[in-house]
């Protein structure tokens, strides 16, 4: 809360479009780089996975589900910090909850994306697969852009919620096109 108010007062003083632009360019570069690697790298079909699951796709589906649940925490804590939730002021630990649930979420997503890129690559032979490939690249690009935006001064107040919303939305799309598809097609299995 206090940190955010503090930051907002900085933003109110000067609003510099360049701060947004460089972050977005960096995020776009990451997204394109991931997509380019996924397309050019010859998928191996196999990669190191997590023990205890029947296969890599089951492991990834559950990891992504965990990330999805943490993203719901992200959404709720972000709304609370912005004062959009009923019940008045957000508890003082809300910013910490937001930061650490976000870090946990992305950390859990890293093994998933590494497996996706290394073993499967960027594919476009089915609508679900194409959407998933595009969203996967977009998600990490948007995440990088958001992290960089947080470090900049002079970022207008609407920028962080907007990029955060894009990160959240793309993650929901990723979950729908992978985990939910897996659970409904193959079954809710470990």
């Amino acid at each position, binding site marked *: 809360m206090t940190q955010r108010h503090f930051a907002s007062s900085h933003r109110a003083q000067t609003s510099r479009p360049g701060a947004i632009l460089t972050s977005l360019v960096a995020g776009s570069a990451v997204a394109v780089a991931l997509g380019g690697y996924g397309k050019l790298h010859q998928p*191996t079909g*196999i990669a190191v996975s997590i*023990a205890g699951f029947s296969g890599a*796709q089951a492991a990834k589906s559950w990891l992504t589900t965990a990330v999805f649940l943490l993203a719901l925490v992200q959404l709720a804590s972000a709304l609370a910090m912005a004062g959009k939730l009923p019940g008045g002021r957000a508890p003082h630990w809300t910013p910490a909850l937001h930061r650490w649930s976000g870090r946990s979420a992305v950390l859990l997503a890293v093994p998933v994306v*590494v497996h996706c890129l290394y073993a499967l690559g960027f594919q476009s032979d089915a609508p679900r*697969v194409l959407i998933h490939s595009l969203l996967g690249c977009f998600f990490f690009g948007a995440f990088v852009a958001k*992290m960089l935006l947080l470090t900049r001064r002079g970022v207008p107040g609407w920028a962080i919620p907007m990029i955060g919303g894009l990160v959240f939305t793309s993650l929901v799309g990723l979950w729908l096109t992978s985990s939910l598809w897996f659970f409904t097609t*193959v*079954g809710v299995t470990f």
Partner: protein
Amino acid sequence: MRYRGPVITLLAIAALATVLFAVNLTTVAQTAARATAPPGSAQPPVPAQESTAQEPADAPEAGPQPDAADPAAPPAVAAPPPAAYAGRSSGNEVTIAIKVRGSEAAAYVCDGKRIESWLQGTLEDGQLSLQGAEGAKVTGAVQDEAVFGTVQVQGKRWPFAAETANSPAGLYQGDGTVNGAPARVGWIVRQDGSQVGVANVGGVRQPAPAIDPSHLGGVQVGGITIVPRPVTGADDVLRPSS
């Protein structure tokens, strides 16, 4: 300071991704490289060995070729004829099939339910050594008409014995795509005609439908038709063409 946090987060994410990629490059790439090495490049032609010859060694051309899928293969010089072995682990936990061609070997291990693994490797001086994904391993010694060794798959280890399997007994594979997910099926047909197989659809394993090894036709897996084909020892079973 507040402004350091996101950068540290980014660096931590990048570091974790780098480590995971490095692990993949070292473990997976090794397995794949071993599987794709051109035949005969790894070692000089193996002199005919009495212990590894599974069929009459003096008539490699006239001997029955169990691998009908590869009739155009040039005759191997001074190499034992292709051989197939099928058997079980000591407690009947898993069934194993091993195909050997020259110094190359391919194997499949499964329990007909949830355990399965494809492996690729070599036969040198009568010693089999094969590796598969996620730490799967088969080692064994070829003795006359049998292989005795150890199989390690999905974190478990068992001793096994496999005997010579003459066509149509042996190892079969099929693949396809079910709703965008890669589907792979392996079947082991033993000398007595019994068979066991596992279908892996998008990483989920289930019992495979039975095939008729003497009249290979398509079977239904996950709503699509998958046609089994014989596996040879030289096939790249870790990275199938599909």
